[in-house]
């Protein structure tokens, strides 16, 4: 019982985060970095897909 309370107390600082966004605040916020890198990649991919479309149009005109 005592051990349980001790371990609960150790978790207390995280309990506020546990309810919301627990992943983003965990592991020293490394997931924020991952989200940022993912956004950059998605943005670049969407931009390139737009160019792909325009090139396809040119190809069809030939």
């Amino acid at each position, binding site marked *: 019982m005592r051990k349980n309370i001790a371990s609960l107390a150790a978790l207390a600082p995280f309990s506020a985060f546990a309810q919301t966004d627990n992943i983003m605040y965990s592991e020293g916020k*490394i997931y924020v970095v991952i989200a*940022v890198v993912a*956004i950059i990649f998605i943005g670049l991919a969407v931009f390139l897909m737009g160019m792909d479309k325009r090139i396809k149009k040119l190809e069809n005109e030939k």
Partner: protein
Amino acid sequence: MLYSLVYGLLTSIPDLPILEQSIRNLFYHVSMWFAMVAMMGGSFGYAISFLSKEDLHKDHRSVALAQTGMLFATLGLTTGMIWAKYTWGAWWTNDPKLNGSAVTMLIYLAYFVLRNAMNDGRKRARISAVYNIFAFIMMIVFIGILPRMTDSLHPGNGGNPGFNSYDLDNRLRLVFYPAVIGWILVGTWIASLRYRLRKLES
């Protein structure tokens, strides 16, 4: 580029409160804005060179660079919002740099709207080149000068300590500068692809 992407995740970082591991975003979020300013600078240069030489190819280059700059601005803004949410606690704050970059993006958006509103190639190129010069100067004012005159949550502005004092130590610098150079090179490459595409279309 590859080096900066990989070492951005692997390199050892200074121990910072609140930011913790997310200081690594320096390599991704901040280099987006550096690349954006470089692209807009190039676009500005070609706008001036179009006005002096009246060569439509310069206009194509100017537009291609502005579009690529817009891509970097969009990426910089969205990544910044994510980073802000988990450091400052809100997606958007009334930080002068945030509002300044939003206004800058609107100004450049108006540049594209202006271009689409005109059909005559030469006239369009001339008017939009003049507007481009205005837009670039406004960008310098909004993201370079105004945030430095007031307090900002961003480092280096107002009462906030600058980059070099505590958060850009040598380990970070070793990755950050190659990242900036790499993204500028990638941006130049994308812009030249868009320029060639434009040339083929016209």
